[in-house]
């Protein structure tokens, strides 16, 4: 049996209330909200967070044999983005990490390919969706990620068995974005609908046949894609008359593009019971259908942090800040020098610290060093340290301040001295919080972020955020 061993979504903390757009531009008010990646997040960092949650829910010691990362909005071209995720997760150097980037279709493509190969594969799908101000894409898009550890029951308990699937692929012009463009363009939607509907029916029938199922046996039907008219049209034609409605998260998160199919599958599995049959139908330059059945193992499966929890734990960002974060308006720069680009060789010497937040612990005294040190602060032993992975260790704020004059892509910087559970202190930037909302004694957890970009090099490191869930 092959299928999903563990899975997780990551919904960034910030929400843009769609009404905020009409307040500024005097349009018809739209309902609901969309999830917004913070100024220090990109598709790679969103992917890291989802992958951390997915691995936390997987059996201990189950190492992925491969990492596949899919996004339509990669932080780098030429350079692989999956390697930063690989480093943040401390995967072995023999474990390959590959990107599938550019197309929205890449997300379901990575998932499907992982389901049809061997060995435990970590699939990470992630996206940040941009639209021009006041446009439909701006309001309906969302930022988010989802990750799943796919494997055989010999790797670990499979919570959702892959029953089979089918693909329909076709070249037609519906949605496109040329390299360098910030936002997508779309053809008149009626044309795309005429393409998607027959492709969808064809893939649907093929998948059911392969799995030996009839449409009435589907308990949960997920139909998703960025062409919402075709999505609605196809859902009505599939004959899944017994399928319960699935929340497509459009009212809260928005459509997270390449990340959305796995995000919806993850949230659907969160309230599935043993035997629940789930169909995932994805419209993106063709139609992919994937069929799953929840196993008995799902009864004892506990997500590290459920999608529902994250959807409910957001905080609003105002529209001006949203536009600035997305680069849609350029604000006055802080009157401080901009940071230099990071050094590739200095970074190369400190990969474990920088990407995985690994300190060192003095074997004799137990003194924890952040960053890792060769000579101990206590006792003075030299080169007698063991690695101390701290990314998943929560901490408590020992001191906190706000800096209104330091350089930041989104000032002011809120900054805290954090004492980690079990020992260790580090002074870190706080994120996903406003100054004044936190105080000494509050609990925080570490999160992988992009501090700044200089000379096109992204400076990834860890920050702390309040523990909300």
């Amino acid at each position, binding site marked *: 049996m092959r299928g999903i061993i563990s899975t997780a979504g990551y919904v960034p903390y910030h929400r843009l209330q769609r009404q905020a757009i009409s307040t500024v531009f005097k349009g018809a008010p739209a309902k609901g909200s969309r999830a917004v990646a913070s100024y220090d997040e990109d598709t790679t960092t969103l992917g890291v967070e989802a992958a951390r949650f997915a691995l936390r829910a997987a059996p201990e010691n189950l190492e992925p044999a491969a990492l596949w990362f899919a996004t339509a909005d990669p932080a780098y071209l030429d350079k692989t983005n999956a390697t930063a995720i690989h480093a943040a997760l401390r995967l072995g150097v023999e474990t390959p990490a590959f990107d599938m980037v550019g197309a929205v279709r890449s997300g379901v493509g990575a998932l499907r390919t992982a389901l049809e190969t061997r060995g435990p594969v970590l699939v990470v799908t992630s996206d940040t969706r941009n639209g021009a101000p006041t446009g439909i894409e701006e309001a309906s898009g969302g930022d988010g990620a989802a990750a799943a550890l796919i494997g055989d029951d010999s790797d670990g308990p499979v919570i959702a068995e892959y029953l089979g699937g089918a693909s329909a692929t076709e070249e037609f012009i519906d949605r496109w974005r040329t390299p360098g463009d910030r936002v997508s363009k779309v053809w008149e939607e009626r044309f795309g609908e005429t393409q998607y509907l027959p492709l969808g029916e064809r893939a649907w029938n093929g998948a059911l046949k392969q799995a030996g199922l009839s449409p009435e046996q589907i308990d949960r039907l997920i139909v998703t894609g960025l062409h919402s008219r075709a999505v609605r049209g196809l859902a009505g034609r599939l004959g899944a008359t017994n399928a319960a409605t699935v929340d497509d998260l459009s009212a809260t998160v928005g459509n997270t593009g390449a990340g959305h199919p796995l995000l919806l599958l993850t949230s659907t599995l969160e309230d599935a019971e043993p035997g629940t049959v789930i169909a995932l139908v994805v419209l993106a330059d063709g139609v992919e259908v994937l069929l799953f059945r929840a196993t008995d193992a799902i009864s004892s499966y506990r997500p590290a942090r459920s999608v529902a929890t994250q959807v409910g734990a957001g905080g609003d960002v105002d529209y001006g800040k949203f536009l600035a974060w997305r680069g849609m308006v350029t604000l006055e720069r802080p009157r*401080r020098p901009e940071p230099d680009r990071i*050094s590739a060789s200095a970074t190369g010497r400190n990969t474990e610290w920088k990407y995985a937040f690994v300190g060192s612990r003095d074997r004799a005294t137990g003194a924890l060093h952040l960053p890792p040190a060769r000579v101990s602060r206590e006792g003075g032993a030299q080169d007698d340290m063991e690695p101390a992975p701290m990314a998943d260790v929560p901490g408590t704020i020992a001191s906190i301040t706000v800096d209104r004059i330091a350089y930041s892509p989104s000032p002011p910087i809120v900054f805290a001295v954090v004492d980690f559970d079990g020992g260790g202190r580090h002074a870190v930037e706080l994120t996903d919080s406003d100054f004044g909302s936190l105080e000494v004694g509050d609990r925080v957890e570490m999160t992988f972020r992009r501090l700044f970009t200089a000379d096109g090099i992204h400076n990834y490191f860890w920050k702390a955020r309040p523990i909300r869930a």
Partner: protein
Amino acid sequence: MASQGIKDRVAIVGMGCTPFAEHWNKSADDLMIESTTAAFQDAGLDKDAIDAYWVGTAMSGASGMMLARPLQLQNKPVTHVENFCATASEALRGAAYAVASGAYDVAMAVGVEKVKDSGYQGLVGAGKPPTDGTGRTLTAAAMFAMCAPAYGAKYGVDKDEMRQVLARIAWKNHYNGARNPRAQFRREVSMDTICNAPVMAGDLRVFDCSGVADGSAAAILVRAEDAHKYTDKPLYIKALSLVAGNCSGNADPNYDYTWFPEINATAQDAYAQAGVTNPRDEIAMAEVHDCFTPAELLIMEDLGFADRGSAWKEVLAGTFDLEGDLPVNPDGGLKSFGHPVGASGLRMVFEAWLQLRGEAPEQRRIKTADRGLALTHNLGGYPGEMVSFISITGTERG
């Protein structure tokens, strides 16, 4: 610390100090020429009479040639030193030890900083090595802002009281600076203005932060036994103490941001070198590193001028005022002078030079000068990771 010290073996016989200001029309070269010229005149020497030079700057130059070229020193040993905000004090230390060793008869220490050419407000570090990008990017203001709430929580000083305490320190230093023609800011500032100024970082407001200025200061040092050849009123070096911290405060959960261990260590060392047992009564005046008002508050306890947890009361009681029991920063401090990093340490010694010799203008002359000992103190860095320096100088050779 097992430092033997050089008590009464070296004397300062001449000093110079430029006004500290936004010197848009003066370069670092100009400022060094002015401070050294004044020191030469003070001691009745010329540049050729100096056997060796130490020049301190943190961001305005490199190598001894930065001084040899503008002064056109011919075949002289010139050493460039840098130690954050203790840079000028480090130059003094190098020159003093060189004379004490017998290697040279006459040495000069020069400190200089040209800050205002960067185009940015505040200090801008220069020549930072390439890094992995994981270091902090905070300003010093934010780091020192963490001390006030920590101190308040530990000793039961509420937020409003703390605001008054910090404002009182700023008020005092501006009061003193208003009486100093070399100061950058020469106006008194009211408590109201201080308390209602714009917020910079944490609870620190504009007047809790020292300014930024250009400036230079210089001192000429000789063997103590030769001092009276140059002046009737030499200042003898009683103690020089330096600690470069191991940066453990931001890595060790035991550090609580209510004191500076590096400063406490230098104080104990300096008092031992100088034979001071009761600093509160024996020291006539102190110039301390008031880069931010919470720093001056904590320093009072680290130097033993006040018991732990009591400095805030002493500040409010006026103990450290110009007319108080122990005047602190009688020249106006960093608050009034601004902080040309590589010059401040020698600027502080210059105030000791004026006050202990009875040459400070009457309007800011301390009443305690007959105690005969002055302390200067620099810190460079941040709470949890700093360099600390203390000098003690005196009028009498013991």
